Structure formats: structure tokens, C-alpha cells
């Protein structure tokens, strides 16, 4: 599974980081860093929660 973030839409609010801090990190510079672009397939439910809870629709999953 491949995680893609549209950085033009992302506003770095760190909602995703609250759900999956091992995958998403918003640092002190206020940018979002993708720590793991290819989370394990077993993590799909949590990644889908990140997609749904991102208020900016900035995250997508490319299979």
C-alpha cells in the first residue's frame, strides 16, 4: 500500500499524526513529513482512518 499526500492541500494540522505517528509527523517547522510511504497491508484500516479524518482530503492510498 502506498500513501500519497497532496502537499498543496495539506495544512499541517497533524490530525493524521494523532492517529498514526509512526507514519505521519508534523515537525516544529510546521511541515508534514511522511515517515513511511509504504505501510504494511495489515495497517490498511488505520491508514483509511487517516484518509477519512484529514479535513483537507490531502491523503490518498494508492494500492
Amino acid at each position, binding site marked *: 500500500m502506498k500513501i500519497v499526500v497532496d502537499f498543496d492541500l495539506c*495544512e*499541517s*494540522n*497533524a*490530525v493524521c*499524526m*494523532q492517529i498514526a505517528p509512526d507514519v505521519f509527523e*508534523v515537525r516544529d517547522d*510546521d511541515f508534514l513529513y511522511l515517515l513511511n510511504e509504504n505501510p504494511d497491508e495489515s495497517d490498511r*484500516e488505520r491508514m483509511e482512518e487517516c484518509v*477519512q*479524518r484529514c*479535513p483537507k*482530503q490531502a491523503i490518498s492510498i494508492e494500492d
Partner: protein
Amino acid sequence: MATQSIHIVGASLAGIRAAEALRRCEFDGRIVLIGDEPHRPYDRPPLSKQVLAGDWDADRIELTKPEKFDALDLDLQLGVRATGFDLATRTLSTSDGDDTIDAMVVATGARCRNLPGIEDMAGLHVLRTLDHAHALRADLDAGPSRVAVVGAGFIGAEVAATCRGRGLDVTMIDPMPTPLGRVLGEEIGSLMADVHVEHGVDLRTGVGVDRLEANDGHVARVVLSDGAVVEADVVVVGIGVIPNTEWLEGSGLTIDNGVVCDATMLAAPGVTAAGDVARWPNVRFDEVMRIEHWDNAIEQGVHAAERLLVDDANALPFEPVPWFWSDQYDRKLQMAGRIGSSDDIHLATGSFEERRFAQLHGRNGRLVGVLGLNRPRHVMQYKTMIQNGTSFEDAVAAEI
């Protein structure tokens, strides 16, 4: 007996997230999703932003991708309106006929309040649905001479900002002294007023609307309570919403500015409610709330669905820290928790001059709210602290 089927009334954010949660919990019975709009569930926040700006079309705002939607295996009833419910016999009446329900999630949301005493006319809009957004966008595409926005709440302010972004002349009218002052406090309200004025909005505060006048059935001007006249051929009214509960009058459920639920979102045995329509005691804040925010509709939809699958002894209270955002021009306003006029206040980062700050609110020694402008990360971090019951003192001292 285990629940066999679940009816979800209202096919929008809370409703679809409830349906998904049921399947996630491996509920394999029948799920009926009933919605009076003709569209599959779509996202509303972009309606006043990207959709109105003309940047996004309807396909960008679907809430669940078609293949995932189909996999939910729903009995989908779009264009169907719930017209009544009787708790005693568990009869749900719709425009398609009657059905006996086993369990139900009420997720009928809210609709826009209209200007009292004003009849409908061409050029007069509210904004709640995709169809509303398309109708308003078409009128904006036609290049009106001026757009009058009645109500400087979140929706009105976003519409004004989007219209300015399209280069249209805008007058925004609100009876309160500052936009959003009641929610944000007068100081931040007046800061937001400055932001609008700097972006070229003709802002009229402290004044109401007396009447609208039309030419040949098309709105032509707004007459204000101080006698001033605003010539405008598009008028957008954003003066708040009303929960959609009429269909539940006399049903046996308690209706009082929303569907009244217990702390676990249960309105009656086997009946829950979620989203803009639901009112419940949030034990975290010791306050009865009805929340009109996007994230709440998701969380509450999930909670209301899961509630139907557990017995009373195992039911958990729904006690979120509510939060919302509003984007106006290049300013991102966010608020989490509860704020009030007698709170202790601390500016944690930034300043009002920079228009970039996070302001903390404390009550009885506890961090209860945070209000941020262009500080999304900070708002979320303080939101976590509110969730963890952090003291105001510790929150003020925290370096983030």
C-alpha cells in the same frame, strides 16, 4: 435477540460513517441508508470553498469512493424522505411507504434558516447542499454586480471570502458588532472584521436586514434596518441552521433543539442519533451539546453505530473534544474544546498583529479550549492536552 437490520436516516457525513463503522464491526445484517438528496454522500465544507470558487467539481467531494461504497452492500434509498416514526410500534414512514425497524441511527443533520418574512425570489440563496452550491455558483459565474451576504457567521464569512477571491464586489451584513464575536470574543471578532475589510469587503455590522426588493422577480437590493440600501443581484443568507427533526415530532423520541440522547448517544432502546441533529450530555465538559462540526459528525456517526451493537452495560459515553476549522482568504481559523467569555486566557504563540496565534482558555484550573489563527498544528496539540485533562498551568508552561 441480536440486531438483524439497521436503518440509517440521513445519507451524509454522519450517516455514511455510521454505515462504514457497522461493517467494520462485522455487522453483516441489512443496512438501509435513506437520504432525501439525490446524491451519494458528499462532503459539505468544500461547498463554500473550492466548489464555490469553481476549483472543484462534484466528483472531488464524494465521501466514499464508489468501489468502497459498493462493498458496503447497503440497501441505498436515495431521493427518499423519512416522514414519520413511531417508537411504540417501531414504524418508520417514508415517501416510499412504511417499514418496521429493528434499530436506527438518526442522522438527518440540519438545514439553513431563512430570513424571516422574506419570500423566495431569483438570486436569493442559502448554502447547505450541493444543489445549493451549484445554483449559487451559476449565479456567480454570470458576473453579478454585487453579492450581498447576510450573516457574518462561518458560512457567510467563507462565502464572502470566496466571492472576493473570484473578484466580485461583496457587502456582508450582520446585526452583531463584529463577525463571529459571539463565538470568538470581540477582540478576535474585530480582527476578523479587519481581515474582511482589507480584502475589500464592504462590511456592515450592527445592522440588520429590513427587506429585500426585487425587479421582475429577481432580487435587486437589500434594505437595511438603518435605511441604507445595498444594490445587489445575488444575496446569500447564512444565518444559522435548524436541526431536521420535524419528521420525529410525536414519535416518542424526545426532541428539544435536536434529538435528545443520553451520554452514550442512545435516544431510545435501539435508536441512536449523530451529527448536527444530535444533542447529548458531553460528560467531559459537563455540558449538553449539539455540535455542527464536520469532525463531530464522523466521530459521533461511528459512536452511534457501535452503540447499537453493544448492550447497555458495555456502552461508553461519547465525550469528544469538539473542534472545527474555517478557511477565509489565507487565514485558517481553528477552535478546539469550549471557550467562554469568563475564561482565563493565555496567548501561547504568535500575536494578534501577526494574525497568527494560538490562544488558550482555562476554567477551574483546567485547559478547556484553544483558538488558533494559522496555527493548525498548535491547535491539535493543545486539543490533545484538553483530551488528557491537562491543567491550565501545565498547558501555559508547555513548549510546543
